[in-house]
């Protein structure tokens, strides 16, 4: 009833091709953004921000990056953790070498380095496909972590190999380091993610995104119609790694505050892949939903028994939580193999007809 596009006429091509062609969608997104920017920092407590919202944003960023590669360009990758580490360590090097450099600029430069690294590790994708490629990208994961662990230059020769986010200011407000408040870090993370989500959304609608999808659907056919698979795939690796690199920098500088290579272990690569698949391959919205599912569900499951006053030994609770988490993944895949984004679409479709579905 409320969600109906009747009466909305497009009178220009620009309007017809806009990202959100339906007015209600635009209102909804605008309201959601306003809520996220203006209301959430005031009402959310530190636990909510630090344990749920900030990681959710950071992992959304990484998931968008991986989704560009896996969902749009069809190249299965398990090297996400490694690329995130590149972003984090490079930001650390940059900001300790040039303390006056704006931290956002440092994030972006580090992202560019990650893009370069992604480019190199993307080269095998021209010959290797599918699961073989996935396992081959693990080579980059293990190699990069080993490198950051072994070469003391990356962590300024301190004894333990841990990098710590130093305090950095932006417009007179402390953005990183221990004194930065959760609200500030949340707002910065949100701004970065929103900007890059918009860029990603437009990227996949344009020429680049279309060539990625052509390669994904059938690379030989794409080659025949004049798309160069080599450049296209490498471009996907580079851009995806850029997103992952920025996400990695955010992970250390806006969330954890300090990290060793273990923070970017193979588990993170898997986690981000889960987000992409559960959320929906080839969907920017899905990246957010998937991140919310993978970040939020365990926290919900951990806290739920306490809210309902059910006390049980903590290990038993954890075991049940892990089992539930596993079952939910299987359950969702059986119900909707195309991910949460698809569920959302179906809901929208139904909403259009509601309350008169016949």
């Amino acid at each position: 009833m409320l969600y109906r596009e009747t009466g909305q006429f497009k009178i220009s091509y620009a309007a017809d091709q806009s990202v959100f062609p339906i007015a209600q969608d635009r209102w909804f997104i605008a309201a959601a953004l306003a809520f996220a920017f203006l209301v959430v920092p005031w009402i959310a407590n530190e636990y909510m921000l630090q344990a749920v919202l900030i990681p959710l944003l950071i992992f959304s960023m990484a998931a968008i990056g991986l989704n560009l590669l896996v969902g749009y360009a069809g190249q299965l990758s398990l090297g996400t953790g490694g690329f995130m580490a590149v972003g984090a360590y490079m930001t650390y090097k940059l900001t300790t070498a040039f303390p006056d450099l704006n931290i956002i600029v440092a994030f972006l430069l580090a992202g560019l380095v990650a893009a370069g690294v992604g480019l190199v590790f993307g080269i095998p994708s021209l010959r290797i496909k599918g699961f073989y490629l996935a396992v081959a990208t693990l080579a980059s994961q293990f190699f990069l972590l080993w490198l950051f662990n072994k070469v003391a230059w990356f962590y300024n020769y301190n004894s333990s190999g841990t990098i710590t986010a130093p305090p950095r200011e932006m417009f007179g407000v402390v953005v990183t380091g221990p004194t930065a408040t959760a609200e500030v870090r949340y707002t910065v993370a949100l701004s970065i993610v929103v900007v890059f989500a918009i860029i990603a959304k437009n990227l996949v609608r344009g020429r680049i995104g279309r060539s990625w999808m052509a390669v994904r659907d059938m690379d030989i056919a794409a080659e025949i119609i004049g798309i160069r698979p080599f450049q296209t795939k490498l471009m996907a690796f580079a851009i995806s790694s850029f997103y992952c690199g920025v996400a990695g920098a955010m992970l250390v500088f806006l969330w954890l505050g300090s990290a060793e290579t273990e923070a970017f272990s193979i588990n993170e690569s898997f986690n981000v892949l889960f987000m992409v698949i559960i959320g929906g391959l080839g969907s920017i919205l899905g990246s957010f939903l998937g991140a919310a599912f993978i970040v939020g569900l365990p926290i919900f499951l951990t806290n739920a028994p306490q809210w309902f006053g059910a006390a049980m030994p903590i290990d038993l609770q954890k075991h049940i939580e892990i089992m539930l988490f596993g079952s939910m993944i299987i359950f969702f895949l059986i119900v909707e193999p195309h991910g949460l984004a698809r569920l959302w679409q179906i809901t929208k479709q139904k909403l259009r007809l509601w309350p008169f579905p016949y």
Partner: protein
Amino acid sequence: MLRNLVLAMLGAVVGVTGVVATTPAQAEGEQFFPMLVYRTGAYAPSGIPIANGFRDYYTMINNRDGGINGVTITFEECETEYNTKLGVECYEKLKNKGPTGASLINPFSTGITYQLIPKAAVDEIPILSMGYGRTAAADGRVFEWVFNFPTTYWSQASAFIRYVAQQEGGVDKLKGKKIAHVYHNSAYGKEANPTLEALAEKYGYELTLLAVDHPGQEQKATWLQIRRAKPDWVFLSGWGVMNQVAVKEAAAIKYPMDHFVGNWWSGSDADVIPAGAGAKGYKSATFHSPKSDFGVHADILKHVYGGDVAKAKRNSFGEVLYNRTIVNAMFAVEAVRTAQGKYGNRPLTGAEVRWGLENFDLTEARLKELGMEGFTRPVKVSCADHETGGPILIQQWDGAKWNIVSDWVQPISEVVRPMIEKAAAAYAAENNITPRSC
């Protein structure tokens, strides 16, 4: 089907946000201790005795004395799986619980400790990382909120070298000896390297560093290298499955086990039992007795388990890591007691407990009162020195239990302390901290 699903999800979301807002009210007169534990996951075999130790000691204090000078101890476990990211979540969840918030935090994970060090000063919650975490934190001028007494990785490594010298018959005998360090390839494992390197320069022994990647299930290459280099001593900084495999592989290459010494995180019961008879003779560092016949143990049996020894044993009673946690829990309780001496017998804030930690003075007489005479050593903390550079003991596995086989071995403080101060100064410079004067 789908509609129901969506409705159910919406319901769940509404439910969550509704409940988040309510925090359970806490009674007055309670001192809250957060507990980051890992009873599941890859490091659970170590995490279980640690978690049980804290729980039992706090429960014993409550049941026997009615709390610390009448202030009841409350505590809550939060499962981290030894994962740094879950550690952050747990910390945020627990830091404001209780009437005065968390009194102090024992992360029991080097990774999580690193994570919390910058936050400690901001949230005003002191960290007691007993024998782990960032060694440089021993410099109390830079790390006001972090305490790592009675001793640290660097002191331990230097004490190990002193022990080797004692066994070999003097410091001058170290020259030309070969020592290998097999370490977990992480912040934790690497901690001892700078000390061992500095001492190698000083005493002229030959140091081989051998890294083992997490998890350390496969170490054949490492032990082949040891078989070939035939080092006179091997020092192990392992954790989790790496310890068990290392002990097993050392036995398989017939390395003399009494020249194979683990650090204090590589010498628990779980580390040697899977290796069976091969582990016999293996040594490790420690800073407390492995026995369980002290007054404090009797009290725990009586006041926590009602004399049920079998039940206590099922709860890791008397294991090495359990005993170590008893020491840690005692430190925590005594620090609160010290602070109460200044601020009165009431629930204390983190800042007040910090004062208690900094003025911590555990005497021999006090240890005796606690039923811990001979269990561990007196400790006296100062503003500048949060470590106290305590000595270590060497224990040896005889196939069935651990036995102490050395006297207290002092660390080589004249080498370690300057290194600590240098590392702390570097940290201060990088993070714009002005060291306070003590």
